């Protein structure tokens, strides 16, 4: 595979529910690290990954305040991966399913996350060397 070829990921899981989310982000990071442009289509619950109002919280059980806890937030992972892509001269194109956003009320996203439809996914597929669908269960 050409190292500069694009790869597309479709993800469906909402944040804070299962390990597929972390795995998907690790795969995206790995692809960017190998010089691929990455296209992500967030479908259904996955549109909440980019929701700008996610908030870190303290954790009394852990005995840590919010700053010490440094709670992982998917919106920050997206922003960091966008920055890493830019630093490597690669592109990370993140598209949220617009109808899925509306029904969940999560239209307020981190910067450079676009709103789209399955037709945008189809365009991504046709512009990519391969596509991985990671559905929810």
């Amino acid at each position, binding site marked *: 595979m050409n190292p500069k070829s694009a790869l597309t990921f*479709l993800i469906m899981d909402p944040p804070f529910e299962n390990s597929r989310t972390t795995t998907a982000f690790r795969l995206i990071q790995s692809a960017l690290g190998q010089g691929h442009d990455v296209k992500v289509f967030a*479908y*259904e619950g996955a549109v909440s990954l980019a929701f700008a109002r996610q908030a870190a919280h303290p954790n009394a059980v852990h005995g840590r305040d919010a700053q010490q806890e440094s709670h992982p937030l998917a919106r920050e992972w997206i922003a960091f991966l966008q920055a890493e892509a830019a630093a490597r001269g690669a592109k990370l194109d993140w598209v949220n399913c617009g109808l899925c956003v509306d029904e969940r009320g999560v239209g307020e996203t981190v910067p450079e996350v676009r709103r789209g439809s399955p037709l945008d996914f189809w365009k991504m*597929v046709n512009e990519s060397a*391969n*596509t991985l*669908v990671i*559905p*929810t*269960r």
Partner: protein
Amino acid sequence: MKILHIIDNAYRATIEEQDDTVLWFTQVLRGADADITLLLRGSAVNYLVLRQDASGLAFGAWRQAQPPRVAASVVHLLSSRTPIHAVAEDLADRGVRAADCVAGIATLPRARLGEFIEGFDRVWQW
């Protein structure tokens, strides 16, 4: 590009979404002339059963006016020339007979799945 959509996880939020989200997604892609074949396996073979009825949900004074109609979605896909296959053993395991099902689908023995999948450029397991 020949694409195979495999659905085995059935009735996932169909009440809230008023349809199956993968069938819906497939219908949109078919509108863009994507060459998609659908394979139903596991509990998703029940999507073929004509006499299912998800209407009647009510919470207090709220009534669901438009329930999901997944068999109708299957018929719609067939009418848009989307080939639909189902795993024969998964139908038999659930006691679903051909007479119960939407007409026009093809059944496939489980033993032939590997050979069948080989015929596609992209295989997306939903």
